[in-house]
């Protein structure tokens, strides 16, 4: 059985990270959510680029997940 997967990529602004351990905890936590295929967090650019299955996550739900972790997150741009 094949499952419909529709991939999307989004870049979210993340404010409040100051070191690599912040970066790593976001990558691990968000990367383990269902529907998240790949995540790259940049400390210098203060953003997170996430490739995800749009059937299971949305830019809003991902931004909320980052906010739950205690960082300010904003939807900056999304590449369809």
């Amino acid at each position, binding site marked *: 059985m094949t499952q419909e997967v529709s991939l999307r990529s989004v870049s979210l602004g993340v404010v409040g990270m100051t070191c690599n351990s*912040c970066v790593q905890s976001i990558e691990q936590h968000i990367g383990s959510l269902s529907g998240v295929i790949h995540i790259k967090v940049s400390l210098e650019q203060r953003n997170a680029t996430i490739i995800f299955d749009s059937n299971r996550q949305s830019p809003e739900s991902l931004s909320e997940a980052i906010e739950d972790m*205690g960082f300010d997150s904003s939807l900056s741009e999304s590449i369809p």
Partner: protein
Amino acid sequence: MTKYEFQVEMTCEGCSGAISRILSKQEGVKFEIDLPKKLVWIESDKDSDFLLEVLKKSGKKVTYNGTK
């Protein structure tokens, strides 16, 4: 109010800032953070399991040390 002590794997101000933002969103919670000792003290009427779940949202390793 009960005072609980938690050990949280915080390595920088970004980590402790994240913890304090999470706790500020909770009502009826007073807290103090000691970054060098990696300790968080929380004064609240809520039970320790609830507070543990709140702290775990940060994605960091959290252990409950008991009441103070």
